[in-house]
Each structure stands twice: as C-alpha cells, then as structure tokens.
C-alpha cells in the first residue's frame, strides 16, 4: 500500500497573498492531480501532471500555478488569495483508472 500526504492540513491566508500547498505520494504513481472541493460543487480539476516536469491545465487553472519537480511530489500555488475564499484542496495520484486521494488542505482567506 501507499499513502498521500498533504501539507499543511489547514492554511489561513490574507487577501492577495501567495500560498503554496504541497503533496507527496509513495505509490510510485506517474500521474498526480490537484482538485478544488467547494460545498455543493463536487471536485473540480485545477492541474494534473502525467510525469515529472509535466503540467496540464484543468478547467479551474486560472489563479493557480503548479510544479512537479519530482515523481513523488506535486505542489500547487494560489497566486493571489481571494478574500473570504474557503475551499478544500485535494491531491490525488493514479497509475491507470483508480485515483487515490490525500486528506486535503483546508484553505481560509481572511
């Protein structure tokens, strides 16, 4: 088995701040994903990466940057946090059809 670790678990930021979320997986999976989860809106894909140094935009990429410097890690940056924004950011990885998710980072912007 493997595990996905996301840090931090809780992130509180200020409006306009640049914030970075990190994700590590030890499944040795090729593909990694970042999703945003808002209440009542399901999971929306921000970025994904099919291999080290690859980046593919999802439907929600505007306002975010991502980085895949190693196979095991995938970072997401909120380029300018929006006031009163609240969401959970989920990282996932896959080798084929099944995606395995991390526990999430809960973002609150004051």
């Amino acid at each position: 088995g493997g595990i996905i670790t996301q840090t931090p678990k809780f992130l509180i930021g200020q409006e306009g701040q640049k914030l970075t979320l990190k994700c590590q997986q030890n499944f040795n999976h090729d593909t990694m994903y970042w999703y945003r989860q808002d209440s009542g809106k399901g999971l929306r894909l921000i970025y994904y990466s099919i291999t080290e140094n690859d980046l593919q935009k999802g439907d929600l990429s505007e306002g975010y940057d991502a980085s895949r410097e190693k196979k095991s890690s995938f970072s997401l940056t909120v380029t300018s946090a929006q006031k009163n924004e609240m969401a959970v950011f989920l990282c996932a990885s896959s080798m084929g059809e099944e995606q395995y998710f991390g526990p999430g980072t809960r973002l609150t912007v004051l």
Partner: protein
Amino acid sequence: GDSVTQTEGLVTLTKGLPVMLNCTYQTTYSPFLFWYVQHLNEAPKLLLKSSTDNKRTEHQGFYATLHKSSSSFHLQKSSVQLSDSALYFCALRSSSGSWQLIFGSGTQLTVMP
C-alpha cells in the same frame, strides 16, 4: 463536452431502508463510470466502477449498473446502515484520452437511527 449530473444534493433515510443515488452522464467516448465515497473529514475513496453495458458491479453491499441506453449509473443499496452516511460522487472518465475524471456535484447521504 463530458458531464456528470447528480440530481440529489441531500438524501436522508432511516437505517434499513433501500437507497438509490442518481447519476447520469454525457460523453462522446465509450463511458467508464466510477462511484467515490467520502466520509466526514476523510479522503474520497473508490467505491465501485462500471463494467460492460447492463452488467451490475458490486462492492461493500453497494451496486450499480451501467445503462448506455439511458446514460445512467445509479448507485443502490438494499439496506442502508448508519456507517453509510457520507458524500457520494459519481465520476466519468474524460473523453480526452487521459485518466482525467469528471466529477458530479455529489450527494450527501445521511442515515438516521
């Protein structure tokens, strides 16, 4: 484009009753559907995935049948338990050719004693 629709945002049932959570989809590709379950403060986990047309797949007492004729993959269970209270997402493999998933908005199932 690809899309997934879950019509119920919230379903509340008494323990022991049957449940059906609706999922319909649109795609130009051969459909491949999934149900994910997310318990409170936990990560989403795969519950079950579709097989061939009109074939039922089962896992942990839940079952679903892919019906291409009606573009549906409804999740069912004959007798819900308190531990089934969770958020359920239907997801469709994207027709883009990658392993992207398109998720529905989710259905919150609450089982009462």
